[in-house]
């Protein structure tokens, strides 16, 4: 059964406001089971602290201001790195999708670079930038670049040539053809790239902050490890999960807003 059919089926058996809550049932059950396991001593606090201890640790860090500062630093690095890498990837995707010459010039090179795991560059990046902000931004931008580049390129190349011919017949200029036919046609694929890129963005940032940083969530977790504060380590991991979910939700919202024409995004 296709996605469209699944979405279009009437859902009268479920309350509409329950739709937003139902996704939180599983995480909630996990937290409850975890709390119970810790309270009854099934899981030693040295291995995994109880959720309540994690909350307490979070509250302390919140009061000292460390938590907000570190989240903010990580968030700033993630968004700036994403913006830099994403725009360069998008620009290359556009150029190589629209111009054969540009594609012949750069695509092979980019495909070669793509096959280097970008985290393998960490030693080199530390030598270049030390543990400054540039190091993190460079790694995030590099990681984000490829999914956006590849999916933008793919999106542009798979725009229906019949629609492009139609646009030409009706006298669209190149700019108009891009604005009205090619770009909207490529957009669903660009969003696939964005969602891949968001995942890579967090992964890269956390690894980079764990290895070479003096602030940020990854640094907070590593420092907590030094002092055996396992509750802070677990707190950091949970915050990654929340931030990742937040980024994904943001991109979904953007998708729904811009792709309202798409059958998969239309309300039944």
């Amino acid at each position, binding site marked *: 059964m296709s996605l469209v059919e699944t979405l279009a089926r009437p859902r009268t058996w479920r309350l509409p406001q329950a739709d937003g809550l139902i996704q939180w049932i599983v995480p909630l059950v996990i937290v409850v089971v975890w709390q119970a396991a810790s309270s009854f001593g099934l899981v030693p606090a040295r291995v995994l602290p109880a959720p309540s201890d994690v909350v307490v640790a979070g509250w302390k860090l919140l009061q000292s201001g460390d938590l907000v500062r570190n989240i903010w630093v990580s968030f700033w690095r993630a968004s700036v790195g994403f913006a830099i890498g994403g725009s360069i990837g998008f620009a290359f995707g556009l150029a190589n999708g629209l111009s054969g010459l540009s594609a012949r010039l750069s695509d092979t090179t980019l495909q070669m670079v793509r096959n280097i795991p970008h985290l393998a560059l960490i030693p080199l990046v530390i030598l270049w930038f030390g543990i400054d902000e540039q190091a993190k931004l460079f790694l995030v931008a590099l990681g984000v670049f490829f999914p956006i580049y590849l999916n933008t390129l793919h999106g542009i190349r798979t725009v229906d040539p*019949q*629609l492009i*011919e*139609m*646009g030409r*017949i*009706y*006298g*669209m200029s190149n700019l108009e053809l891009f604005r*009205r*036919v090619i770009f*909207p*046609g490529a*957009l669903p694929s660009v969003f696939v790239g964005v969602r891949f890129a968001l995942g890579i963005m967090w992964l890269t940032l956390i690894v980079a902050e764990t290895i070479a940083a003096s602030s940020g969530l990854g640094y907070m977790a590593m420092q907590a490890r030094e002092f055996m504060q396992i509750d802070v380590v677990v707190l950091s991991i949970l915050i990654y999960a929340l931030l990742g979910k937040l980024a994904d939700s943001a991109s979904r919202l953007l998708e729904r807003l811009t*792709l*309202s*024409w*798409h*059958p998969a995004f*239309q309300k039944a």
Partner: protein
Amino acid sequence: MIEALQFLVAEPRPNSFDVDDTSSERAAPPRPETAALPLDLRGLRKSFGDNDVLRGIDLHIPAGQFVTIVGRSGCGKSTLLRLIAGLEAPSAGQIGFGEDKLPGDVRVMFQEPRLLPWARVLANVEIGLGTERSSPDAKARAEAAMIEVGLDDKRGQWPAVLSGGQKQRVALARALVSRPRVLAFDEPLGALDALTRIAMQRLLEDVWRDQGFTAILVTHDVAEAVALADRVLVIEDGRIAKDLLIDLPRPRQRGSAELAALEGEILRDLLKGSEDAFEL
């Protein structure tokens, strides 16, 4: 013009013209606002590599005539249409339109509706205005075209929610909105079911009679060809094998003896070339 449109709204199937009215219209078809262009094809050839698709087409189509082109697959009928529509350049020969044609004078409608899925129906129709789509009356003209094809209530919809026949009607409105003087159809009804196809044939005939453009319709459906055309051309091996005038009053009764006889004659011609294939 508005009266004519309102008439169409009030009676979306104006196939109830009485016969006298019809014959007088055929003698002097109405030419509101625009005048149809005649076509002159001289020594038209087209080859793709070593493959000669069209081998010399000489043809005059008077302004306002409804011509249908039939032929077996690969006979070159679609290529001929693409040449007329200016989508491809001929390898030799030329196509004249009597006078200099302006952009928007010649429009094409394809088998696929080719609507932009990310534009609302009305915006899709506005695209048909070509370079005039930024003019202040663009929206009003697009709305008038929507009324003409009987889809006025769908103007705010996404194309994805329309049926196949409705999408083709939007494509027709987009082709009509610039008041074309020649309208070329490349099997526009080929993908529709039988009933929708008959309704669309009537609609095509109605807008042609209303606007009086020169219509060139490529089809594989011989019944459709004889029902709609003033003139049927049979293409075989890249040449015109048969040029048949159909002088029957409109609207024509589907399944009438005269149409059936003409259909049989053309089908016999089409099958003659492939008798071997049918004798097993």
